[in-house]
Every structure is written in C-alpha cells, then in structure tokens.
C-alpha cells in the first residue's frame, strides 16, 4: 500500500512543494512591487525609489539592520558551538537543553517585552536593587533600551536565536556520530572543546548552514523585536518599512514597497558576505586543525559557553516570569520589587477570549505543520529514491524566509482577493504553510540526508521494499528529527503575525494577532496573560518532541546519542 502511494506521486511532491513555497513569494513580490514601480500602468516610474533613497535616515537604518543582524547571528552561533563543544552528552547539558528548547516556542514579541522589563532602568533588576544597593528612589535616566547602537536589540535577538540554533544542531548532531569522534579525539589527547571544534563542528556546521542563514535573514528583517528593543531615531530599515506601510498617506505604500526591495538586497548581500567569510574561517580552521595543537583555553571555553547559554536562558525565563507576575499584579510601581497587591482581574478579562484564540491557533498550526511534514518527507524521499544529490533548486525553498515579509505579503493579499479566495481559515493555513514548510524542511533535511544509507541497504537485502524501508526503518530512526520538525513548525505557525492578519482579513483571531494588537498599547498585564497562553500553545509540541523519543527509545541505546 505504501508503495502505491509513491507510485501515484512520482516526483510530483517536490514540484508541488516548490509551488506552494515559491508561488506566493514570487507573485506576492510582483503584485507588491509592480504597482509601486508603475509597471502596471504608465510605465516604469522611479519616483518611489528616489524618495526612498532621499530619506535622510536610510544609511543609518541600513547599517543598523546589517550590524544587528550579523552581530547577533555570529554571537548566537558562537554560543551554540561552545555549549555543544563543552557540554554535549553531559548531565548539565541535558538540564540546559530542557531549559532552552521550550524557549524556542516563546514568541519573539513576548520575549522582547519580558527582556525589556528586566533590564530597563525601571525594570526588575533595578527594582530589586533599589533603593538599597543603588540608592535610586527613582529610575536613572539611562539609555539602555533602544540604544542607538542596537546593542540591546542584539542581546534580545541572541537570546532567541541560541535556542533555535541549538535545537537545529541537536537534531543534526546524531548524524555526525559525535560520541565516536569524541572518543577518538580524547584518545589523541584533545580536550573536550578543542576536540569537538576540530572533529565534529565542521561536519555539523554544514548541516546547520541553512538555519544559520535563516537566522541571519530573520535578524536583519525582524520588526516586532526591533520596535521594542531597537533604536528608533532612526529605527532599523524593516521597522521604517512598516511605518511607511501604515502611514495614512496612501502614497507612502509605494515607498515601503521599494524600500522592501532594498531590504531584500541587503539580506542577499549579507548572506553572500557570510558565505565568503565561511571560506575564510574554513581555511584558517583547517590550518588550526592540522597544527595539531591541543588547545589551551579549555576550561574558559567550557565555562563561557555554559554561562552565556544559561544567561540567555535565564534572561528569557526571568522576563517571562516578570510578565507572569504582571499578569496578576495590582498597582506595582518603582522601586517595589513585587506588586503592592495581587488580582485575577487580568486573567478574568483575557482568559476566556484567550482560550478561544488558542483553539484556533492550535488548529491552524496542526494542519499547516502536518501538510508541511508530508511535503517535506515526500521531497526528501523522492530525492533519495532517484539518487539525486540535494538539488540546488531546493535552495528556493528558503526564499520565503529570506525575502522580507513586508516585501511580498501585501501582494499575496491582493492575489488572494483577485482569485476570489474568501478571507478566513483556509487562506490563513495556506499562508502559514509558506513559512512553516521551510522550517520543517530545514530541520528535517539535514538529519534525513545524513541518515546512514547502509541501513537501507541492509533492509533491502532482507527483502524490504523501499516503502517498507521508509516506514519501518527510516522514519522510526528519524522520529526525533520528525518531532523536532513538527515542534519547530508549530512554533513558527503560532508566532505568525503579518500572514495571519493579511490572509485572514483580520477575521481570524489567533493568540499572536491578539497579543501583538495588545502589545501596541504596552499594557504589561495584558501582555503577560497573552504571552503565557502563547508560550503554552507552542510549548506543548516541544514537550512532546523532547519527551516522546525518550519514552519510545528507552530500550534503544543507539537512539539516545546526542
């Protein structure tokens, strides 16, 4: 039976997948840009382009996008590598992993709000030290949040990127057989960190390269985090684009569309630069490996990695705890470390609509993720059976993650409307699929391709057809990767704001659309309630992804590596 399924769909799935992903992006880009550039009516007009280039903040805004994007990605990758190098396979690592993974589910905006409350001059840290330690009876006038260099923004992005990269790396790690490499390296007298960096990391990086690019593109074009933590005079380019989009003067929409094109160019340039830097690092790294040096800063590297990882996890946890306290707070003014009184009023207000929105949110996430998983496995399996190398065309899958959302989503909306597709649940699921699929594919492709094909050969020798190999050997062995992919996919879906708003015509209320709307008012109590509900919705799949394999494979030693 399984065989017949593959018989019916020979190679159709990769094509279908590409269409699902690329169609909306390309058409959306066209529908957004063509009117702005006057391509549909009077012929090419460069007015909006000139206006965008003439905006006095353009240089600084672009520079900010680049520095915060690259800076946060480099730091997040370094922390991830150090944590894995120093601690993978240890008990302390398991603790950190349990702490970090659910944090991936935390919506960006909620995380940023939590962090903002933590580190502001009137924030939780200052409150708990005031007036006793600091002597402040009112908050100092310090520019911590929204600093003009974007340092707070970088810190905020790093805390959210580390869990993502770590989870991606963990999903890929078993395929690099780190245990054996570690044994060999240790036997040769390498320390834990140096051994890992020299033997495992190069192979690991190849597998998580795409997630790294996605992180870079995301960090460069994020809107919600940058509004809360980033500078605003001027803001990053992406924030400015959204401002132009929501200007009452309808003419500035064209400006926004053109600026989105600039943003796309910046992202592409940054990725190309990163790619070049990879070569450089690889060259230096190879010399370092060949030098045979055993490494000297072992202890420092281990401690730094763990400390930074724990710090970023704790910052997020404390931020969310702060929001949780706010959700039940009565009056709470500076410098009280805790509210003067507690009240359930915020939960009574937001709880019932919150649960309703949670149902919708989970339904959309489940459907979009299920479809994405089928398409992703279908593509990978087809690729495998035809014996083709991962095709270069598959790169295109990541287009929706690399193209700034503001550049093509307005066009998608026009497209949906022109096609007579009524707004509502269906279009929202489709719009989510565009973003969920790449992430699912992204987290699955590495482990899937790296799966040792000799298992398949052995199974075939034992008389199993390829369908049977897939269902009885490959997928069970890749359970962990599949569940991780599902968890990531659902978290991505839960966090979608702009696609939900635009494809749903505002009529589909998810936790995120409601939370972001409330966040614009900055009411910490309301944000607290919604952020906790939102985290809950995305946390569930992660709990499953972590818990199920442990349960399923409790008697399979070879499946517990990593």
């Amino acid at each position, binding site marked *: 039976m399984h065989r017949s399924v593959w018989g019916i769909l020979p190679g159709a799935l990769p094509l279908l997948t590409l269409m699902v992903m690329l169609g909306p992006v390309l058409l959306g880009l066209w529908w957004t840009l063509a009117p702005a550039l006057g391509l549909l009516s009077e012929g090419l007009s460069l007015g909006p382009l000139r206006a965008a280039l003439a905006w006095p903040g353009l240089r*600084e805004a672009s520079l900010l996008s680049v520095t915060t994007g690259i800076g946060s990605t480099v730091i997040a990758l370094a922390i991830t590598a150090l944590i894995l190098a120093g601690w993978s396979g240890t008990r302390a690592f398991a603790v950190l992993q349990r702490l970090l993974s659910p944090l991936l589910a935390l919506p960006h905006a909620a995380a940023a709000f939590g962090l903002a409350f933590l580190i502001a001059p009137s924030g939780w840290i200052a409150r708990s030290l005031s007036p006793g330690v600091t002597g402040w009876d009112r908050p100092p006038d310090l520019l911590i*949040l929204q600093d003009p260099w974007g340092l707070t923004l970088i810190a905020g992005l790093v805390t959210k990127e580390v869990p993502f990269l770590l989870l991606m790396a963990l999903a890929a790690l078993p395929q690099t057989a780190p245990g054996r490499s570690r044994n060999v390296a240790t036997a040769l007298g390498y320390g834990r960190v140096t051994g890992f960096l020299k033997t495992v990391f190069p192979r690991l990086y190849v597998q998580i390269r795409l997630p790294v690019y996605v992180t870079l593109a995301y960090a460069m074009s994020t809107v919600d985090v940058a509004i809360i933590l980033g500078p605003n005079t*001027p803001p990053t380019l992406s924030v400015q684009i959204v401002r132009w989009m*929501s200007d009452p003067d309808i003419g500035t929409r064209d400006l926004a569309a053109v600026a989105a094109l600039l943003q796309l160019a910046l992202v592409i340039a940054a990725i190309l630069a990163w790619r070049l830097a990879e070569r450089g690092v690889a060259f230096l790294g190879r010399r370092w490996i060949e030098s045979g040096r055993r490494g000297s800063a072992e202890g420092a590297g281990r401690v730094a990695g763990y400390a930074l990882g724990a710090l970023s996890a704790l910052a997020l946890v404390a931020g969310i705890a702060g929001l949780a306290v706010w959700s039940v707070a*009565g009056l709470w*003014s500076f410098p009280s470390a805790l509210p003067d009184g507690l009240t359930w009023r915020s939960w009574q207000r937001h709880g019932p609509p919150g649960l309703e929105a949670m149902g919708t949110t989970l339904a959309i996430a489940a459907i979009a993720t299920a479809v994405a998983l089928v398409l992703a496995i279908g593509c990978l399996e087809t690729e495998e059976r035809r014996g083709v190398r991962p095709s270069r065309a598959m790169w295109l899958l990541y287009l929706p993650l690399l193209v700034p959302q503001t550049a093509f989503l*307005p066009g998608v909306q026009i497209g949906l409307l022109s096609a007579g597709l009524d707004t509502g649940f269906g279009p929202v699921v489709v719009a989510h699929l565009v973003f969920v699929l790449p992430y699912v594919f992204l987290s699955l492709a590495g482990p899937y391709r790296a799966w040792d094909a000799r298992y398949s050969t052995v199974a075939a020798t034992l008389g199993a057809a390829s369908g049977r190999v897939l269902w009885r050997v490959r997928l069970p062995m890749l359970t962990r990767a599949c569940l991780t992919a599902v968890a990531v996919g659902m978290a991505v879906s839960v966090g979608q704001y702009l696609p939900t708003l635009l494809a749903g015509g505002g009529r589909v209320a998810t936790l995120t659309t409601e939370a972001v709307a409330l966040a*614009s*008012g*900055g009411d910490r109590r309301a944000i607290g309630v919604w952020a906790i509900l939102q985290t809950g919705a995305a946390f569930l799949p992660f709990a499953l992804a972590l818990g199920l394999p442990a349960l399923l494979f409790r008697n399979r030693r070879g499946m517990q590596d990593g």
Partner: protein
Amino acid sequence: MRLAILASLLPVAAYAQPDPADWDAVLDEARGQTVYWHAWGGSTTTNDFIAWAGERIDEEYGVTLEHVKLTDTADAVTRVLTERQAGEDEDGAVDLIWINGANFASMKEEGLLFGPFAFDLPNWQYVDVNGKTVTTDFTVPTEGYEAPWAMAQVVFMHDTADLAEPLGSMEAILDWATSNPGRFTYPQPPDFLGTTFLKQALIDLSEDPSVLAVPVMESDYDAVTAPLWAFLDELTPHLWREGRAYPQTGPRQLQLMNDDEIDLAISFSPGEASTAIANFELPETVRTFVLDKGTIGNASFVAIPYNSGSKAGAMVLANFLMSPEAQLRAQDPEILGYGTVLDMAALSEEDRSAFDSLALGIATLSPAELGQVQDEPHPSWATALADDWQERYGTR
C-alpha cells in the same frame, strides 16, 4: 421571460444599498448580519467596551459584532484599498472602522467610504451639533460619511508627587523640563498622539493659530512653524533619554509614568488618567491639567467602507454607539472615561440626570475646567509636521 426579468434585476439587487432614512428596513436587513469592526486593540478598557457593545446589539438587534483588533488604523485603510485594487467591491473584510483625521481625509478623498449615512441615524437627534466639533474632522467636513462616538481633548497628566502645580503653557513646560531634565517625553511622531503634541505646541506658541485651518500648501510653512522648531530645539536635550529615544505609543507613556521614569505626559482623553488609576496603570497621585489658552479637541468617529457587506449592521452599531445608554457607559471613568458627543439639553430628563450623577473620576477635569477647545489644524499639517519632525529629530 421570467428568467430574463430576474436576470435584469440581479445587478441592481447586488448593488442595492441600505437607506438609513428608512430605519425599519435597515433594522430588518441588519438582523443576522455580522459586523467586523476594525478598531485599535491596544487598550484593554476600550476592548472591553467594544465587547459590551457587541453583547448589547446582539440582544437588541440580532447583530453580531466581531472586534478586529488593529495595531494601526492604517491597516484597515490599506485593506480596503487593496480590496478595491483586487476588485472586491461587494463584501470586503471591513465593515466599520474607528477612524479620524488623516485616515478619514484619505479614505474620503479616495472614495472608499459608504454614505452619507450619519445624519440619518435615529440617535443623531441627541448629538450636540452646535457645541461640539462632530461635523468636521480635522477641519474636513464629515458630510455624513462618519458618525461620532466620543469626544477627545488634549490634557496633560502630571504626577503630583513630583510636579505639583499645573503648567499653563508650552513655555512653562519648557521651563519645567529644563529644571527637571529627563522627566518629560512625548510619543514619537508620526504616532497620532506624538503628532498631536507637535500641533498643540505649535498652536500654543503661535500668535495666530487660525492660519493652521488652511492647507499647508497655501500657507507660509517655514514662518508659521519656526517657533515650534525653536521650542523643540531647546526642549529636546532635556527630554527623557535626552530625546535619543521616545515612547512609541501613547499608552507606553502611562507605563513610563507608572515606573516613575517621567512626571508629565500628554493624553487625548480627559478621563484616561482616572481610568488608568482605577486599573492600577497609574499612581493615585496623577492629575490632569489643560493649557491656559485651551487645548485641541476632536471627535472619534466610525466610518463604513464602500464595500462592506454588512452596511445595515454597521449602521445599527454606529447608531447604538451614539445612544444615551452607550454614551453613558463610555463616559463612566470606571469603564472608559470618554467624553460624550451628546447634547444634554436634547436628552430625556432621566438620561440627563444619569449623566449628571456620573462621578467624574479622581483625575478628570469638569467640562468647565477643560476650558477652551481649540480646533484641529487642517490634516495636511499633521503630515507635514510629522515628516519634518522625523527629518529633524527622528534620524539623527
């Protein structure tokens, strides 16, 4: 033959518009409709009020209300515009928009609104047409294309624990800010409230604010605005964070005040401070004041897009929002604290006494104390000032 007649009727039927003058027919048509009201969703109290209005019109008229919570009104404007580009002219996603100022001017000019309808709504008889600016929106005549539902006037909230006395003018604010650096800020233009601060400052500093009633194009912009930029150049270094960062929205100022980061903030709702105190969002020491020469006032409106599929239901809601019942609830400082659009003299004895017996709220000024209401400048001023501000202070 019959088919042909039917067919000839169809296009007419498809484009038949409810006629607000025939209110019974509107009520009939509205029953069972769902109205998607696109309104800013950043305020918990407003959201609760809208939810209450939804329950009431469901009970009373069988109309379902869905509140689409926006972060920005312009999102709804964009949506309608996009629908027109895509040819969706009959059943768009937006049925009612909370709107005013530049967004209204823009939609009206683009022909994106249904109407005129407001003057034909039954509750229009109670509206204070002479005493309140309910028929013009930022000097643009509404011509019945939007219905008012709340009055707003600029007040300044001050924390009396740190700033005891009201400040009577922009110059007094500057003096106070200079001697108390870092304790005042305003939302970053082009935020609606931030731009309002610029307009308020300009009016207060101008010799003759009446020049602001004409479009920017027809005035001597540089000369008129020179006092404003001189004022801001002096003020900015003494602002919160030395003007290197600004709160992004009005409510964010409440948070800063509650965190004791600032002592003075602008508000466009005389009752906002009282409501916020009741919700633990502001300390109990906060009070409000207006400037000696008066402050800007305007009305909040609701408008119906030309392509709404539930125009009758939307009109029922717009009418309900102007009812004494809804207005009374909106004015209650425990609920919303919005000023009413109604004329007390036009109300029944019973309704009038209900309004009279409303407590104002601890930090709310009485109508007499609110003093002179100044007119909004022409909408082009808001755009010009916001753009200019961004070049001068927003991109350094």
